[in-house]
C-alpha cells in the first residue's frame, strides 16, 4: 500500500488524515485520497489537476518532477508526502 501523508501545516486549514491506497502514480494516489476528501483536493490541486503553486509533493522524500499531470511513478510501498512552502521569518 502507498502511504499518503500531509504536512502538519495543512491540517490547520483542512482535515487531512494519513491515508493508505493502492496506486501506481502520484495522480492516482491523490485521486483516491481526494475522492474521500473533496475539499482537500481543491486546496491541493488547481482546476486542471496540477499542483497549486504553494504546494509540493515528494515520493520517498524526492520532490516530484511532474507538477502538472503528477505522472511520477510509485512503488508498492512508496510514501507520498504533501507539503506547503513557508515564508514566515
Amino acid at each position, binding site marked *: 500500500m502507498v502511504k499518503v501523508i500531509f504536512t502538519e501545516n495543512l491540517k*490547520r486549514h483542512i482535515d487531512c488524515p494519513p491515508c493508505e491506497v493502492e496506486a501506481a502514480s502520484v495522480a492516482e494516489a491523490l485521486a483516491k485520497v481526494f475522492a474521500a476528501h473533496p475539499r482537500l483536493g481543491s486546496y491541493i490541486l488547481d482546476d486542471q489537476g496540477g499542483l497549486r*503553486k504553494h504546494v509540493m509533493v515528494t515520493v520517498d522524500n524526492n520532490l516530484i518532477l511532474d507538477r502538472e499531470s503528477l505522472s511520477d511513478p510509485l512503488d508498492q510501498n512508496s510514501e507520498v508526502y504533501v507539503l506547503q512552502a513557508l515564508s514566515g521569518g
Partner: protein
Amino acid sequence: MLTDEQLLKYSRQIMLPQIDIAGQEALLNSHLLIIGLGGLGAPVAMYLAAAGVGELTLIDDDKVDLSNLQRQIIHQFESIGKDKVESAKITALSLNPETRINIINYRPGEEEMSTLIEQANVVIDCCDNFSTRFMLNRICHNYRVPLVSGAAIRWEGQLSTYTYEQGTPCYRCLYEEDAFNDQTCTQNGVVAPLVGVIGSMQAMEAIKLISGTGHTVTGRLMLFDGMDMSWREIRFKPRPACPVCS
C-alpha cells in the same frame, strides 16, 4: 594575523580542526548580509557576530514591537519603537564589539539589493515574504553568492542552502513563484524556540560556507516539525525549465 585577544576569544572554534586559524581568519574577513531581523534574523545575527564574522549588513524596515519580544531575542524591552536594525546592532555589538555592522532600515529595491549582494560573501534570508525570497534567489544566482534560506511558522520550519554551483538547484527550482500566499507569524502564530532552531542552523550553514568545511544542505530541504520533534529531508534537483537557473 589574529591578535592574542582574538586567539583567546575564538579559541573554542579555532581548536576545531575543520575551522582552525585559517577558518577563523576567513570568518573575520567575511561580509554577510542578513535580510530580516525578526525571529530568524535574531539568532543568526547574534551567533554570527559572536562567532567572529567580520562584517554584517543588517536589513529590515520594521520597528521593534512588544509582540516581537517573545521570540526575537536580539531585541530588548528598552528597544520597543526603535528600528529593528538599530536594536539588533546594539545587541550584536554588546556580544562582539569588533564586528563591523552596517544597517539599512528600509526595503532596498532589486537594483540596490544587487549592489549589496555583489559585495557579500553569503546572504542569509530571514525575511517574511515570498516576493523578497524570490528576488534574493534571482540576485544571488546572478552573482553566484551563496544563499542560506530559512522559514518558520507555528510549529514548522524549513531550511535549505543554495550555492549555485554547477548541477545544484536554486530556490525557484523548489518553489513556484506565488507572492499572494504569504502566511505571517503575526497572523498565524509561532512558538518561540522554533525560530531559534531554524535560525541557529542558518548561522551554522553560513559558518561552514565561509570556513569552507562540511557539507551544506544544498539540493536538500530540511523540514522541522516541533510537535513531533522530527526532521524530514527532501532531495530536489535543478528543474530543467527553471526560469532562474536553467
